[in-house]
């Protein structure tokens, strides 16, 4: 590793060039300020200044029951998606650590293929699958469940979103599980713990950082989802993103749309701040290893 021996010999000779690394990041930073920083600032300002200066847009947002319903629904759907992802990803990631390299390659490919296939195309697939004349409904009908509605319902949105987000849960979980020392589980067993007890008292707590990291990522991404709910959802499963889009594009209410966007942005960054300590401690662990 290069970190073992710092490159001191060349350091004095480069002393006059201390600004150079900053110069290298400058073009990217300028673009970042112009295409992310300035637009976000514009949105914050508009939410506070249109039609006049003040907090009226925020008062409107938190005052209208419709908006609060959508806000609550956005969090509920995201929570369901996160739960589904954790439940599906946990056994899957565990199996990835337990099998031989060949099967593992197949399992990894199964995770990466959907990761790589165009997001719009994947949502299109779900439209085809979930529509009233779709595959899943024909299967359900032949099994005797008639008239189950999936498209334009919250269930449909959760199924579609969870599939899109599952890789973001599996990958961090796998990277944590890979590092768990299985001899600890053996030790618990040799001291008389039954397999289930060994799992719940030793393995599960050790894997929790992975669950936590994956869940936060999935939840944050789910909060801002736009395409999947727009295509799979109906009026009763509208999420915050769709509301923002309606306010801005259809009603030209930049102030109100902006206020909603700012709320979404703040929620995202608060969650990230909550997750940061966990992630950092994981990095430190990785560094020690």
């Amino acid at each position, binding site marked *: 590793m290069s970190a073992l021996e710092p490159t001191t010999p060349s350091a004095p000779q480069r002393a006059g060039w201390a600004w150079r690394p900053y*110069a290298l990041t400058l073009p990217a930073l300028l673009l970042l300020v112009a295409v992310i920083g300035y637009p976000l600032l514009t949105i914050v300002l508009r939410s506070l200044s249109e039609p006049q200066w003040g907090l009226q847009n925020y008062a409107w947002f938190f005052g209208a029951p419709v908006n609060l319903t959508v806000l609550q629904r956005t969090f509920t759907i995201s929570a369901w998606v996160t739960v589904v992802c954790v439940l599906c990803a946990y056994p899957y990631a565990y199996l990835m650590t337990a099998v031989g390299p060949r099967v593992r390659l197949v*399992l990894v490919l199964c995770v990466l293929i959907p990761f790589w296939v165009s997001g719009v195309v994947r949502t299109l697939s779900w*439209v085809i699958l979930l529509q009233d004349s779709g595959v899943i409904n024909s299967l359900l009908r032949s099994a005797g469940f008639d008239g189950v509605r999936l498209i334009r319902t919250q269930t449909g949105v959760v199924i579609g979103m969870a599939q899109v987000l599952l890789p973001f849960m599996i990958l961090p979980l796998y990277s944590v599980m890979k590092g768990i020392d299985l001899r600890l589980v053996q030790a618990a067993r040799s001291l008389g713990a039954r397999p289930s007890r060994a799992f719940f008292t030793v393995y599960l707590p050790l894997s929790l950082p992975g669950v936590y990291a994956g869940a936060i990522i999935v939840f944050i991404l789910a909060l801002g989802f736009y395409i999947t709910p727009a295509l799979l959802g109906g009026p009763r499963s509208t999420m915050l993103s769709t509301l923002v889009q309606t306010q801005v594009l259809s009603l030209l209410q930049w102030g109100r749309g902006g206020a909603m966007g700012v709320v979404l942005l703040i929620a995202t960054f608060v969650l990230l701040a909550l997750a940061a300590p966990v992630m950092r401690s994981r990095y430190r662990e990785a560094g020690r290893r």
Partner: protein
Amino acid sequence: MEMKPLTRLILGLVCLLVAIWLVAPTLVVVPMSFNENKSLAFPPQGFSWQWYQNFATNPEWSTSFLNSLKVASLVAVLATVLGTLAAFGLDRMKARPANLLRMLMLTPMVVPGVVLAIGIYAVYLDAQLVGTLTGFVLAHTILALPFVLIAVSANLEVFDRRLETAAASLGAGALTTFRTVTLPLILPGILSGLLFAFATSFDEIVVSLFITNPYLKTLPVQIFSSITRDADPTVAAVGTILLFATTILIGGGMLLLGRERKGRV
């Protein structure tokens, strides 16, 4: 961990179901694309190539496809250059400012798409960049930048900087050192960054939906409006083509990664 045979069986079954759930939905576009009727109802009827023909001949589809190729190629180059420069800069900075700047540069990954989209749309309306090539390239570049940064940084982390010192001590100038020592060793990272950047731009939809206009549409925008407008199996044909194209791209990427791993050992 030891498991009872029953637990093992259940675990295997659950994982099989999850794997099917991950992969199978994507494949459903393939049979739909050969549908004889203009419908997306399952199961498809008959067999025909007409939707592929429509994709190739209908200017709405072929133009948006060419637009996407154009935008994604420009984005791949621009994002790779900016991202690689930034990754180098961060690698050679003190840890504290480097971490701060890195976090800043990764923000495009976590800012909710719609929030970013209305912000960029607002700015573009003022700057008259809506529906322009420049507008698309700039917006997609900033979204692709984090992926390049991550790919190149990962490579720089395992790069042994003493090799540069060695080259310098043997009389090579900074540029020669970079060209003959540094660049070849981190090339896999740069190339996978390039690939990621291209894919990000080619697939980007949320921001594109806002900054598009009838004069400049990218393929995802065209797919989206087609899905919301009517049940046209051309989208299934496009989906199938994209599916095969990405599979080939992933294959290429995997080969690169495989080479890189072998080189490192």
